[in-house]
């Protein structure tokens, strides 16, 4: 039979017509329809193809628990795996079905169904083991093409936002219980947030006719009045279209709000909001979820949960089928029976697994009075039909099979309290043998469960439960609600998880997980293969691992497994429910933290000049640093770096060093503190001088380097590496506060308070003289490693004589406000003297020619200052400094540690690659079977324009004793090696004539 509209009683749908497209065809629904209700209204029941077997699938439920009806929305940057049962239609919406090729009705992948023996439990682990190479070349491409859900969405810019809340009470669920709880809290001193996943409040009041009237009012009227009361209260806020997905410690909830319900995405409005909520008490009134029963072909389109069918009638005003068959093991379907009869839609048959004597008399009377074909002590054996349900087979109380033609079957296997959030909060659940379900037992956090979420399925006692459980809240009023019920008195459920097949064919499958295509047979196979622990069984079979997390079926699988193992369900236990409750869009998690906001870019004051002068940038932490400057479009990086290096050693170059970390240390005990933090001795150092410094970890390994300038014993300025700045400041704070609180010392970052320029090269003094004409830059007045402060315009600059290139050089520190102007002034003055800008790559090359190390490139956290031949930097007479004791540990003081050496190729035309191994054999076997002993590895390698051949630095075992030794360096792309020689790492100007000139 076909769908009809319920014109009698529904109120969530307006009469406004909406048209949308599904698989290229245009359909019409009403405003307020979900995709599913609109498709059902149009008699569309086939929605997609399943994950593994490509079996036809339809709409199984009416909400978030939907395992089957997943769609791809082309009109929303091709959003995949959207639940048709939740997503609302809007004018012009374009939807396609998923996982089918070439078309939904004729799908080639469904051949997988016939290959199903190889897709059974654990097939990922077993079938595709060999032969070698087959996984990558054969199996994976086939699986990728045929298995899976929707296609990835198109690239789009997230406009999602994050909201933060700090409240006293969160009520999760705006159904009847949530509303009673909220009513109780009206105008109390508590800040309350009432969160509802749907666009409307009321839950059961909208979903069914289980409640005739409430407080003597029509359901709709009561709802409207109650919502008004809550809205008018000063302390309760309602969030609709908002789903709580996560319950973290400590009473920290994450909820996602759909801000674009019933509308197409726009370029200016946010689609999703992620709410991060901190609360003191959490009231879980999030209801229950109906479960199914496994029988032959229980996945055919046309099979639907009974309560979902009921929801379509009352929420959306569509009866999905005018004459369905009902199959149940409990009394919750009584209200559906009544609703159908009310609308003149007589069910074709009513099949109840319970026996006559245990079914309530009013149900039996109703069936009899309305002349409905009734089978008690009976069950559905299976369903048949291609692409859609055509016929059901009933096994009656005498085990006879009776076939009835129908296009819809409504199933109820019982109801489960929705304990997902409760267990996320680490509350303990307990098996209820009366209702055959797990229900919340011991909360771990400040959690209260109400109504069916707490396992209370008796509407009459709800009022009392709420009053009772919330009585501890100050000022909460006693609530009296009068419900006029239209249901059976109790659930009265009889245990059944699956029914037996009459005959076995490849097409006959009884599913336990519809989304992941797991059958009941897979469960028994997994158990027989030894996966009898529920956590193992879940992973092996992939049961309840889909995006729906087995919401309608996970308890059923426990029931089936408990029968196989002959155990109680409570002993089988459940797997752990993990957040999120329902899939969370990455765009919501990302919020506005995308593209340029994902990771802020830090730019120096000279950035605009660098761009104008064709700098190519390198990322150093968050900083953008000029890597090299292109002279013209055709210049390569190698050419640019060689040119910059040559020019600097001939005339002068200037580097924007503003990104270097700068830390100011002040205080009465600053000197003692610096002596403890660094390896160097600062006591005898004269004021207004600087030192190259090393900082170690307590393990004796080099952590950072820089230059420390001493203004006086109470005032130091330290530079750090660009990336090391926060860590160095953090370490200083830690030691000052935790280990040496008696020292009076304070420190702060001044990295962004000063721009720094490094000017170096033989002509740098001449340029500095032109720029700062009043300063005496002579060797006598301004020797190496001294500094001073000078007036410049209406500010001050600090100039230090220091160099990292091995040439005469100066560092200028200037407030950023004046930086660009000064930089340009230097260029005006340096132009005729051959001044060029240079980048970090040239800096690295020039320092390598001098054998200076770069912390983090030539060191890796396993290198001591002794390994680097920097013994001269260790204040050996100091009683203590961080890492000192470790330098005399047996391991750090042994002879054969890796030490820093220079490496040059024997054939000067050959290159050495960074990161390569140093070995003693000329040719490496092409197929390495045995470990090959290696002496060390290359840490830095450059082509030196000064020496006109490759120079490299390396860490080599006992390297200091191996000067002149021939060794071989491996290559990345061949088993050949580069014959090389170990040399002193200072390649250029070992006597520092240039530096001190």
């Amino acid at each position, binding site marked *: 039979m076909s769908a009809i509209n319920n014109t009698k009683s529904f109120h969530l749908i307006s009469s406004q017509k909406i048209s949308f497209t599904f698989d290229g065809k245009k359909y019409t629904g009403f405003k307020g329809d979900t995709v599913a209700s609109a498709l059902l209204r149009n008699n569309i029941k086939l929605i997609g193809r399943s994950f593994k077997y490509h079996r036809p699938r339809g709409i199984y439920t009416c909400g978030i628990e939907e395992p089957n009806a997943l769609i791809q929305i082309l009109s929303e940057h091709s959003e995949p795996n959207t639940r048709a049962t939740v997503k609302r239609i809007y004018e012009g919406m374009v939807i396609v079905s998923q996982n089918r090729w070439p078309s939904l009705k004729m799908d080639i992948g469904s051949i997988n169904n016939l290959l199903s023996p190889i897709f059974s439990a654990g097939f990922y682990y077993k079938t595709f083991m060999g032969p070698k190479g087959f996984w990558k070349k054969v199996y994976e491409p086939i699986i990728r093409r045929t298995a899976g859900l929707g296609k990835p969405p198109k690239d789009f810019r997230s406009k999602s936002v994050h909201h933060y809340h700090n409240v006293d009470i969160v009520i999760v669920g705006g159904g009847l219980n949530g509303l009673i709880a909220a009513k109780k809290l009206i105008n109390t001193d508590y800040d309350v947030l009432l969160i509802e996943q749907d666009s409307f409040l009321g839950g059961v009041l909208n979903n069914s006719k289980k409640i005739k009237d409430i407080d003597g009012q029509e359901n709709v009227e009561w709802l409207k009045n109650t919502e008004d009361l809550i809205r008018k209260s000063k302390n309760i806020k309602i969030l609709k279209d908002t789903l709580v997905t996560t319950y973290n*410690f400590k009473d920290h909830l994450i909820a996602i709000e759909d801000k674009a319900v019933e509308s197409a995405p726009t370029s200016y409005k946010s689609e999703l909001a992620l709410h991060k909520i901190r609360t003191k008490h959490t009231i879980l009134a999030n209801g229950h979820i109906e479960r199914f029963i496994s029988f032959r072909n229980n996945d055919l389109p046309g099979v639907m949960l009974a309560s979902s069918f009921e929801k379509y009638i009352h929420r959306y005003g569509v009866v999905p089928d005018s004459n369905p068959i009902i199959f149940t093991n409990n009394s919750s379907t009584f209200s559906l029976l009544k609703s159908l009869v009310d609308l003149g839609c007589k069910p074709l048959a009513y099949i109840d697994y319970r026996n006559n004597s245990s079914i309530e008399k009013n149900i039996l009377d109703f069936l009899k009075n309305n002349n409905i074909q009734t089978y008690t002590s009976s069950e559905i054996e299976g369903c048949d039909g291609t692409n859609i349900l055509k016929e059901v087979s009933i096994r009656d109380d005498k085990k006879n099979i009776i076939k009835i033609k129908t296009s819809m079957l409504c199933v109820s296997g019982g109801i489960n309290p929705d304990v997902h959030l409760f267990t996320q909060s680490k509350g303990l659940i*307990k098996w209820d043998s009366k209702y055959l379900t797990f229900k919340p037992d011991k909360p771990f956090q400040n959690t209260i469960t109400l109504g069916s979420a707490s396992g209370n399925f008796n509407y009459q006692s709800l009022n009392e439960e709420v009053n009772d459980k919330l009585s501890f809240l100050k000022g909460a009023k006693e609530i009296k609600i009068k419900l006029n019920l239209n249901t059976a008195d109790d659930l009265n459920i009889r245990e059944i998880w699956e029914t037996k097949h009459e005959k076995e064919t490849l097409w006959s499958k009884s599913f336990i997980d519809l989304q992941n295509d797991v059958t009941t047979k897979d469960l028994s196979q997994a158990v027989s293969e030894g996966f009898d622990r529920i956590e193992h069984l879940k992973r092996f079979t992939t049961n309840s691992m889909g995006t729906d997390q087995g919401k309608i079926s996970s308890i059923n699988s426990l029931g089936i497994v408990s029968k196989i193992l002959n155990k109680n369900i409570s002993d089988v236990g459940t797997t752990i429910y993990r957040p999120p409750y329902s899939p969370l869009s990455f765009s919501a998690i990302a919020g506005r933290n995308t593209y340029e906001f994902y990771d802020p870019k830090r730019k120096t004051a000279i950035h605009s000049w660098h761009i104008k002068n064709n700098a190519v940038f390198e990322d150093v932490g968050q900083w953008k640093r000029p890597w090299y400057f292109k002279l013209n479009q055709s210049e390569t990086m190698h050419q640019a770096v060689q040119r910059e290096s040559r020019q600097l050693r001939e005339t002068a170059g200037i580097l924007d060093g503003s990104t270097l970390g700068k830390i100011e240390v002040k205080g009465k005990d600053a000197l003692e503190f610096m002596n403890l933090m660094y390896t160097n001795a600062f006591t005898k150092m004269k004021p207004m001088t600087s030192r190259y410094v090393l900082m170690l970890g307590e393990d004796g390994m080099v952590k950072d380097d820089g230059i420390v300038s001493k203004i006086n014993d109470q005032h130091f300025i330290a530079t750090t590496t660009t990336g090391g700045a926060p860590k160095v400041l*953090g370490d200083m*704070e830690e030691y000052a506060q*935790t280990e040496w609180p008696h020292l009076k010392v304070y420190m702060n970052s001044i990295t962004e308070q000063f721009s720094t320029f490094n000017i170096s090269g033989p002509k740098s003094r001449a340029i500095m003289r032109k720029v700062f004409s009043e300063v005496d830059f002579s060797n006598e007045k301004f020797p190496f490693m001294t500094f001073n402060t000078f007036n410049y315009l209406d500010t001050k600059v600090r100039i230090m004589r220091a160099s990292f290139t091995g040439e005469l050089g100066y560092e200028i520190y200037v407030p950023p406000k004046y930086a660009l102007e000064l930089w340009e002034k230097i260029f005006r003055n340096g132009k005729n003297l051959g001044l060029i800008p240079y980048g970090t790559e040239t800096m690295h090359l020039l320092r390598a020619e001098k054998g200076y190390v770069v912390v983090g490139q030539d060191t890796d956290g396993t290198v001591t200052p002794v390994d680097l031949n920097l013994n001269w930097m260790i204040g050996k007479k100091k009683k203590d400094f961080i890492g*000192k*004791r470790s330098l005399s540990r047996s391991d750090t003081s042994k002879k054969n540690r890796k030490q820093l050496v220079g490496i040059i190729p024997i054939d000067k035309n050959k290159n050495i690659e960074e990161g390569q191994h140093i070995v003693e054999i000329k040719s490496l076997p092409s197929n390495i079977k045995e470990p090959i002993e290696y002496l060390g590895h290359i840490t830095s390698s450059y082509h030196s324009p000064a020496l006109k051949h490759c120079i490299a630095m390396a860490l080599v075992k006992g390297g200091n004793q191996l000067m002149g030794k021939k060794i071989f360096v491996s290559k990345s792309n061949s088993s050949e090696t580069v014959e090389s020689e170990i040399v002193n790492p200072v390649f250029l100007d070992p006597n520092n004539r240039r530096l001190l000139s």
Partner: protein
Amino acid sequence: MFLINCPYCGERDQSEFSNGGEAHVKRPENPDSISDKEWAEYVFVRSNPKGIFYERWVHSHGCRKWFNAVRNTSTDEILKIYKLDEKPPSLDEFKHTLQTPSGEPELGSGNFTVKK
């Protein structure tokens, strides 16, 4: 994510803080006078209990101050916060508060969701 009550700023989100490992591990005053083994104990060895743990935190995205906390590592419950110069509370003070999230044994792992 839990809240931490910074003794200088008040309650703030955990994300503002950094954990600094075990508290009350005193740096030896005369490192040169102790053995390699004793020094290595200080540098490398820390305890990692399930249950009550005395640890250090720093309000890194706030006041930059270090302080101590007593935390139940199996529940993430912070039982006490005290300043660096305050005496550490005695272990007995927390014995009765010790619980595990799912009522599982105090030692060993195990995720139980079902109450027997």
